[in-house]
């Protein structure tokens, strides 16, 4: 029979976690809604434009913050800019998790928003849904809200993306815990 030994665990994981999804976005009329964009995914530019119009029609104020490079002096400025922007919004819609590093930064920024007390939903495409949840958990916010869009998406034309924006809007509201107006919420 082979002898037994004790070996030391080489892994490290953060032990803390916040499993709460954070506050519902609630009634959006009168709220300040912020979209986090990036420089890669034009499909997310198109969808956020579509959704922003619906939010404005419902009486919300909409702003956009675009993520660029996160290293060097520009990265430092990005970190400052993000913090400042988060102070100006009540609801964050953070995208787009549609690749590896961009999912990483989407989730990182979404966690920053959620940790700042902003009602936050990250937006991922189907192929990156599981990854988004994994990174949220590793980032200490396993309960982060993630709304999932179909994949592939960025390869589609504007005419093809518009119907996706329409089709997935109601689902976005549901994940956000939001309604456009008090009447809708009551209904």
């Amino acid at each position, binding site marked *: 029979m082979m002898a037994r030994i004790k*070996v030391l665990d080489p892994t*490290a994981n953060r032990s803390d976690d916040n499993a709460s999804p954070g506050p519902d976005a609630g009634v959006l009329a009168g709220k300040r809604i912020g979209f986090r964009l990036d420089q890669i995914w034009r499909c997310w530019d198109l969808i956020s434009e579509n959704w922003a119009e619906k939010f404005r029609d419902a009486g919300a104020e909409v702003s956009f913050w675009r993520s660029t490079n996160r290293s060097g002096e520009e990265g430092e400025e990005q970190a400052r800019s993000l913090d400042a922007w988060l102070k100006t919004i009540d609801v964050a819609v953070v995208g787009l998790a549609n690749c590896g*590093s961009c999912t990483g930064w989407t989730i990182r920024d979404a966690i920053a928003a959620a940790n700042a007390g902003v009602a936050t939903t990250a937006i991922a495409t189907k192929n990156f849904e599981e990854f988004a949840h994994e990174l949220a958990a590793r980032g200490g916010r396993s309960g982060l809200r993630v709304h999932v869009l179909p994949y592939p998406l960025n390869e589609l034309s504007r005419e093809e993306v518009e119907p996706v924006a329409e089709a997935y809007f109601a689902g976005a509201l549901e994940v956000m815990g939001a309604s456009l107006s008090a009447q809708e919420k009551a209904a």
Partner: protein
Amino acid sequence: MSIHLIKPSNRKSTTPKTLVSRDCGPAGCEVDWLTSRRLDTEDSIEAFTDFSLEQGWGDGLPLIPPTDARVRLFLSENDRYPDELIARMPDSSECTVEKIVINAVMAGAPADSLELIIAAIEAITEPDFELYGVNATTAPVYPGFIVNGPIRDALKIPYSYGCAGGVATKANAIGRAIRLIMRNVAGQVAGVTTQTTFGSPGRLGGLIMGEWEEKSPWAPLAERHAGIKGNAVTAFSTIGTMNILDTTSSGALAFLEMIGKSVSYAGANCFSPAMEFSEMTIGINPICAEIIARELPTIEDVQEVLWKYAAVPADWFQRLHLNQLEAQGRIREDGKIYATPEPKDVILFVCGGLGGLHALGLHSFGSSLAQTKEIATAAPAHEVQAAE
């Protein structure tokens, strides 16, 4: 023109010190002060390797079981306390000396490589290295390391023939140790926490090489990059090694033209609209370096010439690409897109065998910026303890 130039930030990674009494010195007391969980397994390389794969610790190659005795012995040959926090990984997990040593033992790395490994980890966890993106991306990127100073010979870090891989020294185990730390502490597991589409052989054994600074006509890389003389390591992100063959050129400008044009292809990360800026690391062999330096004695001039050739015409790109590149101001007045924002962002070092003919292209992931760290000199723990 609104090209974003690369300027290092002032952000520093925060690594607060932790814990306890140092009364027992770095070698530890009779009491247990290694805090890692212990797991029971069979006492053989084969059994432990299987066990490590079941636990998600392994890389598929045979591993040495990290027993208390082996970890303590490794520590005793250095003067680091196991609870010392070296860095926080992208998910805020803590990379302590203890975790580094456990992984180094598993990889078979020599005890005297600890300070090099620590410096490497410190380098890649600097905010400007952007490990958050490097870890998660679909790209096959991994950190590569260039070592300067006498420690190259002490640890047999290759810088001559075969320096980018295949030389039989324990440098391979050092590279593997860093890779295991990336897996087990930084959590870089394909399909789980990294979405790398293809991965890379470099994600197994890593890439760690020296600069043949004695053959370089210019100052050592660490000195040029960070003002550090002596033992130092420069971490850079790379999506792989690329060979550039030139058996025909005879002068500095001709060699640099070939190198610059060869590293420039439309699908390289540095030309992607997804990355506004990028560095480029290039190894020049000693024979070419000597030829180049005869005409261009200053490294800045070499970088400028190379940079001018490391560009592609904008009309190589399709309209959707151009829309984004134009928005970033990356199309210059000459109608070209350059691999890096400025000549300084082409990082050059001298390495390789004396046969000449080849250069080594090491494309960057993109926004990850090379970081250079000094390597501390270790004193054996028993000496430190005696001194205390």
